[in-house]
Each structure stands twice: as C-alpha cells, then as structure tokens.
C-alpha cells in the first residue's frame, strides 16, 4: 500500500492537514497505515484520541468546517457506525444546508468489508450504506495505484469523501506503472477503470471483489471466454457511463461484490441499466454475485463460503452465456 509513503511525501508542503483517530500516532494505527507519521510530524498533525468515534468524527468535522483538512481514521469502518450521524447528517449535509457557504473538506478512511477470522461484527461492507447518501463521495479502491491516485484526490477534494480501504488488500503487493509512481499522479473521483478488456461479458466490481472478478476472468479465459473486468474505483459518483459502454460491446453483465445483496451496489447498477438505453443491449438478464445474505460466520470454511470466489464468478458467467 502506498498510503504511508504518500503521507510522508505530500505533507511537507501542505497546510491544514492532520490525521485523527484511535491509536494513529504512537501505535502507528491499528493496521500500521500511519506508520512513522507521528515521529515525523508530531502531535499537531497526528492526533490520538480517546475511544469515542462519535467524538473524534465530530471534532474532525468541526475542524473541516472551520477550514482545516482532517483525515479521520477509523480502526475499521465497523466502528464508524458509532459516528455515522456525524458523517451523514453533518459532514454530508452541511454544504447544502448552509446554502453553499460552508464546505466540509474531510476524508473518512479505514478498512472496510470482510477481513479474515473476525466474524460478524468486524466483517461487513459499508459501500452501499454511504453510497446511498447525497452529499458524500465514496471511493472503494482496489490496487496500489487506485489508493495513491484516489486518496490524493480525496484529500484535495473540497467535500467529504468516504474512503473505503480493505484489510486483505493491505497485504497484497501490486506493481505500479511509471505513471502511477510519478509525483504528480492523481486519479479523478467518479471514473471507473477497465482492469481487463474482453468482449463476451462485463464484470463490474469494487475493492477486493475486483480480484475475485479477475480470478473468474482468468478461469474463463482458459475456456475461450473473454470477460471485461471493470474496477469501479468510486461508488458515488458511480461511473454508469463506463458500464454502459462496456455492455454495449459485450451484451452481458454480471456485478461482483462482497457486500450483501439487498440494496447493494450490484442492485443499484442493475437498476440503472434497466432505466437506460443499455437495457436493450443486454442479451440476457443481468445478474448480481454478492456476499451471502447472512452475518459473517467465524468458521473458516463458512467464511469462505459466504464470500464469492473466482470459481463462482466463472460458473455464473458460463450459466449466463449458456456455455457448458
């Protein structure tokens, strides 16, 4: 993850930025994402707080209203539920309610979605929760390149951005292009990326599910099916255009996500496709692949079964394409 390097490089010249959260300073963050920051920047820029998510989220939101640029870290997004009123009702709505006079330049970030072996209360995806709310921008990065380019964009954005990282992906190494490694690299919020081009079916995913879709695509490639994998990168704004373009080419659509099915990101994409011209491009009804509709089990085998795998994607694609 380039997050850490990003901080250290960028912060020197920037004004008003600080990171706040539980254990972000001396302990380097619950997942060591802020490693070394406190040593380098000290107490003014890296602030440990008492255990009150609602409290430090409110404090960060207030600081943003007053013109600073806080980055508010949650140990995991599961604990952001304690603070969700500040995120949605205050950070998300103040610009509107103040008739455009008070903007809230803040980033809420931390690991989101299923981790491993931490069961029901620590393994859920909040992508759909936040994407539901006008006033928020929601980013769900997949690769190192995504993280670097989009975190930078999020930090520079004048509005509240929810930045949903993934604990499993923290441990994954990605190769980065020269372009992504350059100092000025930044990605636009709201634009998806084609991770793998293909012509037979479109697979749309975000975060760790991109990896699942890619695995599925790899299996399929061996059987002569070329799946196009779209990495959404942003959940709000959602790049409907990129999906529409792809479907116009492939005429088939499957969404892949680790979150629950009901009112999920896949549900939203399918609805949008129904509402537009793109519907007429589909040769088969579009399908969602999601996490199982249950709280996350603790047992390893069940945990695995509760999340879609590459082979599930491959099977669903073959079923849709009516390939044996």
């Amino acid at each position, binding site marked *: 993850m380039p997050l850490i390097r990003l901080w250290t490089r960028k912060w020197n010249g920037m004004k008003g930025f600080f990171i706040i959260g*539980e*254990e972000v300073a*001396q*302990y380097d963050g619950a997942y060591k994402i802020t490693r070394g920051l406190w040593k380098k920047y000290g107490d003014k820029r890296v602030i*440990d707080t*008492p*255990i*009150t*998510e*609602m*409290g430090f989220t409110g404090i960060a939101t207030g600081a943003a209203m007053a013109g600073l640029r806080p980055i508010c870290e949650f140990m995991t997004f*599961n*604990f952001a*539920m*304690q603070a969700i009123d500040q995120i949605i009702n205050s950070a998300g709505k103040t610009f509107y309610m103040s008739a455009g006079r008070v903007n809230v330049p803040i980033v809420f970030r931390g690991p989101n979605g299923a981790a*491993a*072996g*931490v*069961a*029901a*209360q*620590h393994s859920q995806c909040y992508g759909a929760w936040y994407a539901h709310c006008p006033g928020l921008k929601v980013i769900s990065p997949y690769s190192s390149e995504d993280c670097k380019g989009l975190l930078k964009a999020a930090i520079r954005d004048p509005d509240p951005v929810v930045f949903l990282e993934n604990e499993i992906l923290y441990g994954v190494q990605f190769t980065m292009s020269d372009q992504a490694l350059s100092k000025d690299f930044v990605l636009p919020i709201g634009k998806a990326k084609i991770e793998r081009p293909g012509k037979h079916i479109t697979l749309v995913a975000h975060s760790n599910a991109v990896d699942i879709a890619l695995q599925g695509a790899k299996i399929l490639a061996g059987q002569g099916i070329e799946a196009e994998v779209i990495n959404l990168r942003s959940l709000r704004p959602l790049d409907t255009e990129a999906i529409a373009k792809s479907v116009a080419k492939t005429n088939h659509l499957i969404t892949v996500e680790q979150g629950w099915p009901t009112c999920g990101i896949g549900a939203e994409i399918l609805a949008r496709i129904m509402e537009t011209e793109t519907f007429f491009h589909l040769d088969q009804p579009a399908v969602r692949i999601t996490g199982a509709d*249950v*709280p996350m*089990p*603790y*047992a*390893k*085998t*069940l945990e*695995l079964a509760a999340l879609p795998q590459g082979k599930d994607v491959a099977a669903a694609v073959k079923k849709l394409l009516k390939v044996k």
Partner: protein
Amino acid sequence: MRVVICRIHLKLRDIEFRATFDGVYDYAVRILCTYKRTSIRAYYRLKLLLFPGAKTTWSEKIEFIKMKSYRPIPVYRVLDRQGNVINPAEDPKLPEDIVIKMYKSMSLLNNVDKILYESQRQGRISFYMTNYGEEASHIGSAAALNNEDIIYGQYREVGVLIWRGFTLQQLVDQCYGNKDDIGKGRQMPVHYGSKELNFITISSPLSTQMPQAVGSAYTLKNTNQVVVCYFGEGAASEGDAHAAFNFAATLDCPVVLFCRNNGYAISTPIKEQYKGDGIAARGPSYGIHTLRVDGNDVFAVYNATKLAKEYAIKENKPLEIIPHQMIVLPTDLPSEIKQWTTNDYPVMKLRYYIEKRGLWDEDKEKEWMKKSRNDILNAFNAGEKKLKPKWTEMFNDVYKDIPSNILKQQDYMNKHAPYNKYYYSDLGSNPDTG
C-alpha cells in the same frame, strides 16, 4: 403570611437596590423562617427550591470550581502489600474454602492465558485477550454475587465466568469454535456467553453493553437481582457510557457499573483518555454512589461489590465501582507481559494472605500449579481435536421460517453430505473441509 408580604413591601420601598424577584424571594424566605421560628435547615430547604435541577446556595464571590477544589476520591483497600488486613473491621472473614477457591481461580486464569495466548500467536485461533492483572477484579466481584445476577462483560472478564462454573473445556471450545462451543462457532474467540450462567455474550463494539446493562437492570427492579456491567476505562469514553450513567441514575436501576481501570486502552494511556479525577468522579456528578477500590486487592473488590449489590437492591439505585490496578501494563501488548515482581500483583497479594492464615504453602502451590496447568492443557488438547459444528447448523439461527432459496440449498446439502462422510459425519464437520 399577610404580615410577611406587608413587610416585604415596606422593605422594598425603603431600599432602592436590586429589587429583583430573586432578592425578594430570598428575603421573603428568610423572614418566613424567622416568623415561623423554623430551623436553619428548613430555611435552606426552602431556599434550595430556587434552582431548577440544582440544590445549592447563592454565592456572591466569583470563583472557579477547580479540579483541586475537591479532594480526590480515595482508593479503598483491605490488604496491604504484604497481604495483611489493615483494618480488622474490614476483613470480610471469608471461610477457608471460599478464600482458596478465590486463589485457585485467580492463579488458574494466568495458566489459561498462557495456553490460549500462545495459540493465537501460533495462528491456531484468530484473536485473544489476556486477563493478566485483572484477577482480583474478576474474582472479588464474582464472589460477591450469585449466578442469578446478570453479567455484561467487555471481553476481559474470564475470571467471572470461571467463578460461575464455566469450565476450561467450554473456554477452549469457544475459542476454537468447535462442535461443543455453545455459540456454535459463530463468534470470534473470547466472545464467550452463557445463558445458564447469566453471562450475556460478549459483543465487539465497545461500550454497547453499557446502556444494555442498564436496560436489563430496569427489568430487575424490586427483585433480588442486580446487573453488573464491566467496562474498560477506555470504553468509558464512548457516548454509550454517558447514556448508561445517566439512564442508570434517572431510571433508578439496580445496576453496578464496574470500570476496570488498568491504565491503558491498547496503547493509549489514561492521561490521554480523560482528565480530572477519573471515571470515579463521574459517578457522583451523575448522582450515582461511587467506590474507588484497589483493583489488586481481591477483598477490597469483594467488599465493594457486596455493599454495592446490597444497596442496589435495597434502594433500587445504580452504583459505580472503579478498581484501579496500581501497576499498569499496556494490556494489548502482551509481548510485554512479564511476571509482576512486586507484591502488587493481585495473585501474589492473596497468596501472602492465605499463607499467613496457614491455608497455603509451597507444596500446595506446586501441586496446584501442576494440576491447573494439566487441566488447561487437557482441555486445550481435547478442544483442538474436536470436530467443527455439524453442517446442519449452517442453516439455523438467521431465519425462523427458512426461505425457499435456502431450503433448496439445504436440500442439496442433504443429498451431498452422505457421499462425503469424511467431511460431514453425524457428529460434526471435519475442519479440513476447506
């Protein structure tokens, strides 16, 4: 009464200054008291009515109330560092079998930790929380209650469970999520729970148990039961803690809010967690009777909990107990765990005491250590080998009436399982299924 009003009018005409309502009322009350020859107390009682929500007096001097305006709340203790009872009147004079049970339970905890913490480090289980240093808090409080009292824990209260009769095997089975885990392997390790023992299942998000405990206590009014809610001093910063304190007081609930203050929340020290005279000082400000006790002194915790329970039942009122550990270690950095060499280690303190009472000696200690280590090792070996819960459990406890799509999957499994006897026996599932 007419006379009084008359006089006020007179006075008012004479004096031109501050003819405010307050002044008039103040004067009226004073005169009324003189007239009726009432006592000073009555005078104040009448005056106290003046302030909505506060029973106090006037002051004409501007002055901050500072942290130092009050004496810090003292720490109650029974034993000194060498295990001597300081004030004989405070000796709970517990019978031999109880004191020995206390000592055994406390020292057993450490052995449980060693095995299960090592399991976590080796990746056999995904999570663990140690109980080191909390022994007196757990056992002292548990011994003063009975199993009908309802316990809400945070995650570091294994001693309470052990005291109530939860077996070592049950602890291991939960951590391994095997077929005998009463939680059916649904929860992370150390998220114990037992309906039989009135121990509510541990929940991960901090402090959510606190208002829930108060809610449970509300239903126990006018019974002989209380609710005891354990929480860390770090968890006390959550908004839910405030809600719990305020509702406990305003709804008069028989709940004991028990704050295990061990000085750290992961790596955050108390000086960054709160200011002032700590969580104990919050009690009285919410209108809750409070005891601050030595968390390394099992008898102090015992006496405090006993008194708190009696009071809670008699008065239908909440209580706050804050055991402080005198020596603190970062509790989530178990690599730093080392044996306390000082007498403040709660288990040592009690050991000095029982040795002085002639109830314990080196031989007994050796024998007990050997037995307790063996007991936990046996439980561990058995627990690790056990099968996982039977696959049929997979379909339970989410829907009361199972929807058709899940029924279909259940049907597949029913057909599939008999052909894969190695993985799915009638007794349970083989952990190698992945």
